[in-house]
Structure formats: C-alpha cells, structure tokens
C-alpha cells in the first residue's frame, strides 16, 4: 500500500511541470514581408522587428495553457497560445516575438497587452481590455480595443484606431487618419495630414497637426471638448458649430448665435481656400488654437 502511495506521489510530481508554466524558445524561417498572425488571451505580446528572415518566439506559457501553436513559414506564420477546452483558470502567457521588420502583423488578444516596435509593414491589432502600443514605422496601423488604451507612435503612418472607453493617442501620424471612441479621449499629433476623422460621445478630442493642401478635418463630439491646434499660417475653410458649448477662435472672428430658439453657436470663416476644417459639438467647448 505504501508503494502505491509513493507511486501516486511520483506521478503527481511528474505531472506538475505540465500544469505549471512552460518556457518557450522556438524559431522558424519567414519571408521578410510575410504575414505574422499572433493570438494570446491573457498576459502580454511583445513584437520586435529585426533584420533576420525568421520568426523567433521566447517567453512563458501560463499555468493551464495547452500548448503554443507555432506553424506556417514563408509567407504566413502563426503564433497562437492554445487553451484547453472549457478552461476557466488559465494564467496569462508572456510572449516575446521577433519578426522580420517588413512583416505584416495581425494580433488578437483578450486581456493581453500588445506592444509592437520596429515593424515597417501594416499592423492590425485588436484587444478587448489589454493596452496597445506601437512604436516605429508601420506603413499603416489599425488598432481596436474596448477598454484598453491605444498609443501609436508612428512615423508618418496613416491608419485608424477605435476604442470604447480606452484613451487613444496617435503621435507622428500622417495621411488619412481616423479615430473614434465613446468615452475615451482622442489625442492626435502629427505631421501633415490629408484626411482626419475624429468622433467621440463624451471623450475629449485634441489634434495638433499640419493640414495638407485640400485636406479635410472633421471632428465630432457630443459633450467632450474639442481642441484643434494648427500652424498659424494654415489656409483653410473653417466651419464650427456647437449647441450649448462655447467656441474660442485664435484665428479670427468670433462665433455667432445661430438659432432663435436654442443657444446654438456657429463659426464660419476662411484663412485661404485649400483645406477644410469642420467641427461639430453639442455641449462641449471648441478651441481653435495656433501652434
């Protein structure tokens, strides 16, 4: 009987490593501009571009994880943390992934944080509650989160970011840019933009950028303040309205009242026919500032 007990203990001890954290250290060849798909539920995903034509994954798989799927090669590589069926208590997995710098990234997580740097291909990133951070020179970004914060520091990249309550910060963007949230703030700072659409319900909007010729800038909020900072020499048609907020304009004329029955304010003026700036607000204030 004692032998049986010892055997059971030994078997349990042997099973422990499989139930606990597992170290990962794998690599495989990949095209320099291929697609890398990554998914992880909880923990973190950190992706760094490098000059080798291979994808390398290191890190740890959380307790209870079934396995790491690391497959593909050539034009498409898949890195996926696989959980067991009906898993309820699984620890997060932390992955450090190196990819060819020109890779196109597609990353999905639930609560895992996403960090990307030195990748020059397109990046599409989605998380439910994890934060998303991109630094470097992606050719285009597309980021989506429910409650996680999104911060893109992209050198002259166009793209879009969307959240529900998480704050969205876009730095160094250029070209066509879209950002929206329900209650999260939107902060955009860039070089020369050609098309910008910013929309929130209660979040604050702030933009500081130069407008390309014929650029179109639209900002809409219901109750969040909107702050637009542009070069003093900007040439644009401005049209700003707010129902019950105030309009402050550093470029020229003051707003006028538009409605006999409501407190509406409107401001339309031009500093030169080129770009077009449209701001609509309901109860928030609007500030037009010179850089």
């Amino acid at each position, binding site marked *: 009987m004692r032998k049986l007990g010892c055997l059971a203990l030994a078997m349990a001890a042997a099973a422990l490593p499989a139930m606990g954290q597992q170290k990962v250290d794998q690599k495989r060849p990949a095209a320099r501009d291929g697609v890398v798909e990554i*998914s*992880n*539920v909880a923990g973190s995903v950190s992706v760094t571009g490098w000059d080798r034509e291979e994808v390398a994954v290191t890190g740890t798989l959380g307790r209870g994880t*079934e396995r790491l*799927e690391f497959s593909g090669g050539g034009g498409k590589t898949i890195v*996926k*943390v*696989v*959980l*067991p*069926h*009906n*898993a309820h208590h699984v620890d997060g997995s932390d992955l450090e992934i190196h990819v060819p710098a020109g890779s196109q990234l597609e990353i*999905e*997580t*639930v*609560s895992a944080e996403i960090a990307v740097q030195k990748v020059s291909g397109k990046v599409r990133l989605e998380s*439910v*509650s994890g934060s998303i951070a991109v630094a470097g020179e992606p050719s285009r970004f597309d980021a*989506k989160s*429910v*409650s996680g914060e999104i911060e893109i520091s992209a050198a002259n990249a166009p793209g879009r970011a*969307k959240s*529900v*309550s998480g704050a969205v910060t876009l730095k160094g963007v250029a070209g066509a840019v879209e950002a*929206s949230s*329900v*209650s999260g703030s939107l902060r955009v700072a860039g070089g020369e933009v050609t098309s910008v659409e910013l*929309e929130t*319900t*209660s979040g604050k909007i702030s933009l500081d950028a130069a407008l390309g010729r*014929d650029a179109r800038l639209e900002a*809409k909020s*219901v*109750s969040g303040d909107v702050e637009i900072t542009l070069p003093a020499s900007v040439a644009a048609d401005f*049209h700003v*309205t707010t*129902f*019950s907020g105030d309009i402050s304009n550093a470029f020229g004329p003051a707003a006028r009242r*538009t*409605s*006999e*029955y*409501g407190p*509406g304010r*409107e401001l*339309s003026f031009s500093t030169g*026919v080129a770009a*077009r700036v*449209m701001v*609509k*607000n*309901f*109860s928030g204030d609007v500030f037009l500032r010179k850089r």
Partner: protein
Amino acid sequence: MNCRDVHELLDDLVDGALPEDRRREVARHLAGCAECRTSEAQLRSLLARVGALPRTIAPPHDQWQGVMARIMSGRGVEENRAGRGSRWVPLGAAAAAAAVLIVAVSLVTAILVGRERVSRVALAPGRPAPASAVVPASIELAQVQATYTAARTQLLAVLEARRGSLSPKTLEVVEQNLRIIDGAVAEMQAAMARDPGNRELPALLLAVYKQEIDLLQSVAQLPARG
C-alpha cells in the same frame, strides 16, 4: 451658374422645390458638367433608397424565431477565435451575423453612411458655408430613427445572449458606455424638440446612433471571455 451655385440648389432640385427658371438653369449646367451630374445622381440614389425603407424592420419571421429559440434554449455555435480552440459557447456573434446584423445593422449603416456621403456632397469644395447644407430636408429623420431603434433592440438581445460569455469588466464598460450614449441621445432629442430648426443636431444625433450600433456590433463579435 457655376458648380458652387448648382451644389447649393441640388437639394431643392431633387426635392422638386426649385422654381422652373432656376430648374432650367441647373439643368443646362448639369448637361455640361459630369461632376455635378454625379453629385445629383448620388443624391437621387440615396433618396430613393431611403424612401424605400420600411418604417420598422423585422428580420424574416422564421429566421428570427429560430435565433431566439436557440438563445432561449442555450444552444450554442462553435467558435474558434483567438487561440481558445474550438468550443461551444452561448449563441453570440454567429447569431448576430446570421440574422440580426445582416437584416438590420447593414441597413442602418447604409443609411448612416449614405447620409454622411450626402453631407460630404453638400460640403464639397467650392460650396459656401455649410450651415444650411448638412442633410437634405427630404430625408426623414424619423424613418432613420425607427430603423436605428429596431437594430438597437435586436443587438441588445444579442448582448443579453452573450452576457454569460463576456467578462464582468467588459460588460461593465459596455453598459457604462451605453448609458453615456443613451444620455447623449436623450439630451440631443430634447434639444431638437426645443430647437426643431437646428440643422446641425440631426447630423450629430446620427453620429451617436452610429457609435451605439458600432459598439453593439463590436460586442457581438467579441471573443468569449472578452
């Protein structure tokens, strides 16, 4: 009459509200201007689509009954997303995609996108200050509101069905933001009642409708445990 003048008159033209002499002038310009003809065609097309919409939208009866029956019985659909392997989860995104989203949301989205497009036509370069040119008067806001309400109701049913498969934190965020949107909608509707002539408010209201539909669509597509 130049393009700028014609763009100012397009809404009245398609509404049939333009005096005969002005109508003839616009027609002469349209005959020689492809760009303005395109704007006119887009506007007429949009109005035709909106005019053909029903006041309320119900998905095909049998389809919706099937969806609801499955929701109520707790039967699920197989899901394989974000590395969780194949599993049975409460009915969620697939049901939405199958019955609700296709029937209702795409319609609402089409309307809202269409209205945005109209706004852009109205705000095309060369057009003067757009205070009076946000949305053609002939598009009935009430019609869009009815469509939005139908879509919202159905997507809220999807949210209810997914309640057990989403994390409490996510649910809290979603519900909190739905309350923010509902509050904004109520405030704007009250403002429109006080100031029915304000032509900016409908555009803002529609933007908020779109945000709510977007949010509910996103929830329908969230992974389990998200």
